[in-house]
């Protein structure tokens, strides 16, 4: 049996094992549903919604300048972490060697969750004073998500939150230094840059693109013998 022949076996088996499937569309929908369930994407969506709700409730309160600036960053980081958590696979190597749609599913899931998080947080800030506005949310969330994805691919999918959580501290500190000089102005600390700053947007975009690409190509680094 050649390698090409072995590839055709699971497909035939799948058709035989699931006679109720009537076509590729239904199979595709089932694949997406199973992927979403295995990655806890519904829970991640709920977490993102909770972040948006939390941000909305927090914006009702009265904050001083530091608090008003740092508040959105905390919720953006929380939403980015929720996205990062979904890249962990409960199946590990067996899934990698059999799932040829995995790169597309990973990319689509990450992009959709990121878009959902940006939309939810931006909507939460509507009608309230959201420091930095929607552009800030877009840049910060994308960048921090990229950090989380890179951590998931290099460290451990379960510990991928370390990157966003660790980045939050220098990010908040960089915002603080806008008042207490010397200010940190490097574009790699994009939360402290103005929303229209091109350098910061490029840095955040690069990190996000790199994160999505690495996750799509390699997937997260899943520890052996641990439940994701």
């Amino acid at each position, binding site marked *: 049996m050649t390698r090409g022949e072995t590839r055709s076996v699971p497909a035939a088996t799948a058709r035989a094992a699931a006679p109720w499937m009537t076509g590729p569309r239904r199979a595709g929908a089932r694949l997406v549903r199973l992927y979403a369930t295995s990655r806890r994407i519904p829970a991640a969506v709920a977490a993102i919604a909770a972040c948006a709700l939390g941000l909305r409730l927090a914006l009702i309160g009265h904050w001083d300048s530091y608090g008003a600036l740092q508040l959105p960053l*905390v919720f953006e980081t929380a939403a980015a972490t929720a996205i990062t958590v979904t890249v962990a696979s409960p199946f590990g190597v067996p899934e990698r060697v059999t799932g040829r749609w995995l790169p597309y599913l990973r990319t689509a899931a990450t992009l959709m969750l990121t878009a959902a998080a940006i939309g939810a947080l931006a909507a939460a800030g509507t009608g309230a004073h959201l420091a930095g506005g929607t552009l800030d949310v877009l840049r910060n969330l994308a960048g921090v998500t990229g950090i989380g994805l890179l951590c998931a691919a290099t460290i451990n999918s379960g510990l991928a939150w370390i990157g966003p959580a660790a980045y939050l501290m220098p990010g908040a500190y960089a915002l603080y230094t806008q008042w207490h000089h010397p200010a940190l102005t490097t574009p790699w600390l994009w939360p402290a840059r103005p929303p229209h700053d091109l350098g910061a947007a490029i840095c955040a975009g690069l990190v996000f693109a790199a994160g999505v690409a690495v996750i799509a190509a390699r997937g997260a680094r899943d520890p052996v013998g641990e439940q994701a």
Partner: protein
Amino acid sequence: MTATSAPARSAPVTSRPGLSTARLLRLELRHNAMLWMMPVAVALFWVTAGRKIMATPPLWSLRAANMRLSAVLAFASPVAGAAAWMGLRESRRRTIDLVNITARPRPARLFATWAATTCWALVAYLACVGVVYGVTAQQATWGGPLWWPAVAAGAALPALTALGFAAGTLVPSRFTAPLVALAAFFVLALSTQLINGSQSYWQVSPIVAWPWELGPDPGVGTFYAYLPDLPIAQVMFLAGLTVAVLGALALPTGAGARSVRRSAVAVTAAGLLAAGTAVALAGTGRLNAHGMIAIPALHDAASDRPLRYTPVCGHTAIPVCLNPAYASYLPATEAALTPVLGQIAGLPGAPARISQAAATYRQEPGNSVGIGLTGPATSGSPPVFRMILPAQLPGPATTASEQASQVRSTIGPSIVASVTGDGPGASRAQHAVTTALLMDARVVPRHLLAPGTPVARNSAPGSALAGGRYVAPPPGSPVFAAAKRFAALPASVRRAWLTRHLAALRAGHIRLGQLP
């Protein structure tokens, strides 16, 4: 040796619980996520705090307070997240059933994991404290390490690990660790928004190292001893919280024998009681006159006595003496005041010494604080002019040249005014002479800071400058013209006139037209 003798040899080892606990702890120490999180926590501390702390003046109070705030914030996320990750371990590795049948009760296993996590967190924290305090010890000119701020920040780590560990154990989910890590930062960093005035329950937060509305204050803890009242309440709160959370871990059914659970209930209740008491105590705190939070139930009156020190004095015409903690400021202060002191040295009523004094703090409505001197600026015999250095006051760090400029423009005019008797209600002649002396000393007398306002100032109620704001006379005014004329006199003539007429000038008996 027979086969039956073999178990007999191992029996004494297993019957020593201390040894087996130590072995379990050693195993946990070797397989703990916090070990790998230590570099992250230390790096966060140095990125966000190291540069900032080392850039501040080498004053123990200032560096200890900054170190405490930064350390707690930098360690919060990594420590709480790592603890939650360790709490998740049995669920993550699907070994709950496996370890539940071991001889050791569940609380003992959990405590060993928590203790190992806490140990590594404390090791990383102590390394940071050691470096900050070590460098400060080499740079500081006076005083010693303040241990209470370090202890209060250190007490936050077991509490953070306990909370994170409990969350990971009780809510095993892939979202738990990141949620705990971010929640720890959020709660600690933004809870201070709720502090309003010195009597706030939220001061029990471990990042509050000083009256929150005041900010890092270099003047605190140098003239009077650092008050441990608030740190004691904070340590009490954090210890109570830690004990309560750890006790709660042993509460669920199946956690152990009934006696263990009863003990857990008692421990949890005691922890909650201690934490609640600490919160209540923190709410009774008030800003004392020395810029620290005093809690009546914890306050030791002996702490209110001023610290003894031998001032360091310069060699100007009128010696400038500073607290030895501020010795590094002496050259710049001397250089800034030399022109002014040269104008008044030897005149009747001129101060014999310029001495740095402690600032007095007063809580004002809302979150504002008034800072100033208590009593008149000049007192004693021979007269001593008391001053507050700008470096003593809270605010952003300034360079040596900025400090010198502030000293020249704020303290310089105050010293001259104390000799001429200038201030609110003074005559135009007094105002003109003050302006003339400042002109000759090349000091721009923009204003003398006014008391009674919620800002830092160098005068006091009842002093010559009380209740008013000294503004240089506008060019073209009679006072300005008289000042210019007086300043243009040869120094010897001016000095001779002042020697003869200064008493009359101070009494307000000299009119503007009588000035030479």
